[in-house]
């Protein structure tokens, strides 16, 4: 629980970047194309004269939405189903696990790709699709973890002391499983940010004019000869965000 502030702080930073940018990220300025770093444009401008820093900040907001959506949906759905499966036992346990395994059969990216092709790619649609796809592996993970904790002697002790089932769940079970679940969810959301960037790069149903980091890399890939910094900055932003996010969730 103590390590929650760090990932949340990172998310807050991403969202703050979406609320304020030095320039309008979509403002085209044909006169000042491909200018290097100046005082007004700290990272320079792209081939249409749009301010790169503003576009990166706006893209960070969109990436933040994906991370948050995947985290919340995966955490709620996965921990609920996994814990339920372990507690209920019997045919319901088998049914939940079999259903999760069926979901794992289709790669996460393909689920999101289908959703993007059908409903169009937006941070929310991709976040929901990736989050739903993350429920499967999270359920299996939570189930295994919960079974392990349930078999510990202190759970038997709580039973013998006559602790009510809600007390067993919230005082004894969840405090032991949640930290590991949160770490796992954090890693899943980090890779979801990568998956979203891949979808935007592949360009299925995405609006290429929107400032997604992946879409920017696709748009700027042709300028790798003349203006490699255009490619470098979105790469650094994405890699840095995911790296820091994974790191923050790991400790």
């Amino acid at each position, binding site marked *: 629980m103590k390590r929650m502030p760090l990932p949340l702080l990172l998310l807050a930073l991403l969202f703050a970047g979406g609320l304020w940018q030095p320039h309008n990220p979509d403002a085209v300025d044909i006169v000042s194309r491909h200018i290097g770093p100046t005082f007004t444009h700290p990272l320079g401008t792209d081939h249409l004269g749009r301010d790169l820093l503003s576009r990166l900040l706006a893209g960070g907001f969109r990436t933040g939405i994906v991370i948050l959506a995947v985290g919340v949906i995966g955490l709620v759905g996965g921990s609920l189903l996994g814990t339920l499966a372990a507690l209920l036992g019997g045919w319901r346990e088998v049914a939940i696990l079999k259903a999760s395994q*069926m979901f*794992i*059969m*289709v*790669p*996460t*990216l*393909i689920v999101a*790709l*289908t*959703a993007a*092709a*059908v*409903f169009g790619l937006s941070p929310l649609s991709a976040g929901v699709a990736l989050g739903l796809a993350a429920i499967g592996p999270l359920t299996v993970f939570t189930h295994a973890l919960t079974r392990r904790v349930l078999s510990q002697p202190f759970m038997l002790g709580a039973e013998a002391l006559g602790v009510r089932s809600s007390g067993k769940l919230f005082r004894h079970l969840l405090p032991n499983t949640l930290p590991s679940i949160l770490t796992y969810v954090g890693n899943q959301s*980090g*890779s979801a940010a*990568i*998956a979203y*960037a*891949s979808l935007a*790069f*592949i*360009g*299925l*149903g995405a609006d290429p004019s929107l400032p997604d980091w*992946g879409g920017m*890399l*696709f748009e700027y*890939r*042709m300028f*790798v*000869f003349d203006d*490699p910094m255009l*490619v*470098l900055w*979105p*790469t650094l932003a*994405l*890699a*840095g965000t*995911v*790296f820091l996010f*994974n790191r923050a969730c790991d400790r």
Partner: protein
Amino acid sequence: MKRLASWGLQTALGLLVVSFAAFTIITLMPADPVEIAIRTWNLPATDETVAALRQDWGLDRPLISRYLRWGWDFLHGDWGRSFRTGEPVLTEFLHRLPLSLSIGIAGLCLALMLALPLGFAAAVKPGGLADRFSRLLSVFTQSTPVFATGLVLIWVFGVQLRWIRPFANDGASLVLAITLVALHSTAVLTRVYRQSLQEAATQPWFATARAKGLSETQALWRHAHPSAFYAVLAAVHSEAGWVIGSAAAMEILFGLPGISQFLVQSISMRDQMVLQSYVMVVAFWMVSVDLLARLIMLRLEPRLT
């Protein structure tokens, strides 16, 4: 034998569920294929044409009967027609599949070939060069998407060193694409292999092997390798999914004419049959890799539970 039959049954059931789920979602697509067909083929937009097309494609019938009809046609080699090209989807896929498959298979095989020596070296000398390199690789591949790495490599090899022609659909691009696809799986499989080797080395039978006079390296190879290789095979399944996504990004980045490129070109026309066929091909790929890995695991460990 009984186990094989049960696997086959599970696999078939899984494919059935996946195909039905995909069919339902794709039919929910907020675009009318009849409208698109009329626009792309310049048909007269009269009520008769619309009704005739609807009846011809069975769009007036309930979902279940449409699904059954699609499934029947699919199994008999009729994968529908692409709106964009007017060609049968199956022909186009057969034309493009070899490239996509070879990127995927070569990527996975290359990853396995790189991961085993690297993981073994890391396990022999924890904290050594191989260990630190593999850890760095895994942190790097986890936080950098493969196409971004690819762009940087294009800049290095294409612009700075001028070894390759950037964005050209040639052999050098293919090799680069396969290497990039293999990077992520190499990192994951190396870590899995190293960790399992280390775990095996704490077992009592490992101490026995050492007491018999085997060196650490010999004991690791003879006694720890089989179980560690088993763990690697179990991890191949999730990597097969990663490989698909990376291969798709590579096809777009290098302009390689594979099935993912075809999907991207088709989806702006709301080409439903192409998307449905793509999902099915991916499901087949996952199932085949899974079955192959399980068969090898069965050979390694007949007591498989």
